[in-house]
């Protein structure tokens, strides 16, 4: 008798054999990814390899041609837009900031899925909104226009929006772009705190490999629309990988503080022509 046994622990997100394309151009080729509950998973890879595309696929922002995406044990096709927004929140790579919107106005929109369109007409969930703004340290700017904030403050406002959505899974596409090194670490520590304290599942895309190494439980490497390798930082980040995927000669040492891999890049061996 062939009884299919349900896995004891289902992944938060599991995408398998994904083919996805824009118009006719195939971007993802048989790509698969597993995101575990309560872990920080980071997607890395060179520009244009399909990281954002992958994230769009498993957050239902892009239709895929082949494969399957399962969120919390259920096929993503079974979710309505609203139901999915209760499970996972997304911060795209370059969010559009509408003019004349205060931080509070922005963050309040995070309640949409929970209170519904008509609920949004009343002002609801003040505490949740204030908490989210507080967590990213923007309480002082709560009445300021988002488009008048600095790049880093704006990024934190967007993160507050995803927090106000109050989901278990957080998907962030390059949350540290535009930020200086101090604010990069601040955001990443904030994300780590959400993961450790609130047990949130985080999946993000980063370009800084050392940050990926320091903050991730799990790293997924994409190249040319395929998943090259994935696993713990020490297993994934190797001199060969850096040469093959990123085109750099590098050496890897142990970070004396965190014990994570630390990459020193020496020289590009990319042939851009």
């Amino acid at each position, binding site marked *: 008798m062939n009884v299919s046994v349900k896995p004891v622990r289902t992944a938060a997100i599991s995408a398998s054999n994904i083919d996805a394309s824009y118009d006719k151009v195939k971007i993802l080729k048989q790509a698969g990814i597993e995101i575990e509950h309560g872990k920080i998973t980071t997607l890395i890879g060179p520009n244009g390899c399909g990281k954002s595309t992958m994230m769009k696929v498993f957050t239902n922002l892009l239709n895929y041609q082949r494969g399957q995406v399962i969120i919390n044990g259920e096929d993503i096709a079974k979710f309505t837009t*609203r139901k999915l927004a209760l499970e996972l929140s997304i911060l795209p790579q370059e969010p559009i900031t509408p003019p004349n*919107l205060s931080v509070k106005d922005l963050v309040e929109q995070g309640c949409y899925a929970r209170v519904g369109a008509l609920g949004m007409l009343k002002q609801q969930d003040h505490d949740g909104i204030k908490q989210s703004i507080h967590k990213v340290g923007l309480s002082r700017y709560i009445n300021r226009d988002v488009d008048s904030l600095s790049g880093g403050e704006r990024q934190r406002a967007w993160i507050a929006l995803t927090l106000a959505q109050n989901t278990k899974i957080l998907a962030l596409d390059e949350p540290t772009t535009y930020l200086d090194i101090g604010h990069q670490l601040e955001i990443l520590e904030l994300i780590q705190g959400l993961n450790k304290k609130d047990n949130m599942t985080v999946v993000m895309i980063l370009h800084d490999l050392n940050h990926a190494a320091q903050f991730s439980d799990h790293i997924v490497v994409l190249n040319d629309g395929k998943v090259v390798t994935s696993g713990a930082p020490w297993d994934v980040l190797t001199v060969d990988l850096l040469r093959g995927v990123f085109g750099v000669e590098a050496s890897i040492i142990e970070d004396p503080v965190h014990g994570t891999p630390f990459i020193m890049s020496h020289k590009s061996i990319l042939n851009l022509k």
Partner: protein
Amino acid sequence: MMSDLSVTNDQAFDQVVVDRRWLKWRWLLLALAILCFLSLMISIMIGYHSIFLVPSRIWAVVSGDENTSKLEKIATNFRLSRAIMAFMVGGALAISGALLQALYRNPLAEPSLTGVTQGATTAVVVFAVFGPTIPNHLVIYSVPFIAILGAIISTTITWFLANRVGKVEPLRLILMGVLVGGVLSSATIVSLIWAPDTYANDLIAWLAGSLAATTWEDVRMLSIALLILTPFVFLSVPRANLMQFGDDIASGLGQSINPGRILVLFTACALTAVAVATVGGIGFVGLMVPHSLRWFVGGDLRRLVPACFLLGGALVMVTDFIARNLSSRILMEITGLPMDSVTLPVGIYLSLLGGGFFLFILKKVKT
């Protein structure tokens, strides 16, 4: 560095209980309501028939007091219906503009610049000239439907023309809107050639956007239409709010993109169309009003839309008051043209005002 994150006893955190924008907004609504009331009073007190009505006389007429002269009755009825009409038209157009701007993510989106108004006017003219004859008493109630249909068709065409490259760019949208509007306006003029002389003039006057022929029947029709559309506005506001962020974020926050878009587009088209159906092509209200308010109440449509209703209403009411009281003698002196006993329709004044405003914004958008 003491970062914000480590501040646990954050003073600002407690202060945010007072949300400044909503507070400011309440005061603004009050001020706008007073403005509307004053405009209404002035509109009724002063005007055509050279009779000045003090508020007590107005009240006497409105409350049905027998002790009023025929002239007082006529003047009050005429001016009151016209002022109410102006108010509703302005409010509807301003809300329509605010919704379109959110939907298109474009500060220049405006019913008359995105093909909505011309779609409505053209449909009405074409129907009046070529359509089946309908009983007189039904005309007033069928025109809005025709106008809505026309607005939706031409908006959809504009959308697809502007959208061909994958996304709708601000200036491309306006370009296409003006293009579609221009083609439709020509179609309107061509249709007018076939119109019997008896109502060709009426149609031309109507096209320029005039409140001169307002009757209580018109007021009733538009109030009913706006009442029906009110729930649509309520449903549209939170959705349009999310649309300002673009499809990905709106969808990530739980909004189904296409149903939301259709709802907001329909509401914006219908609001403009029912206004146009009664008073003709009045433009730029949907551009000027949301813009002037946005810097004050912010871009959140939950505050913007109610404020738009009041300010749009006041704007058209005041402009119409000026339009019908600016004596032809003054017009003659300003323009040097022989304009004896001519009053220009309110639409002309609003276009003049709006044109200047548009140039002003265009400069800001480009930079």
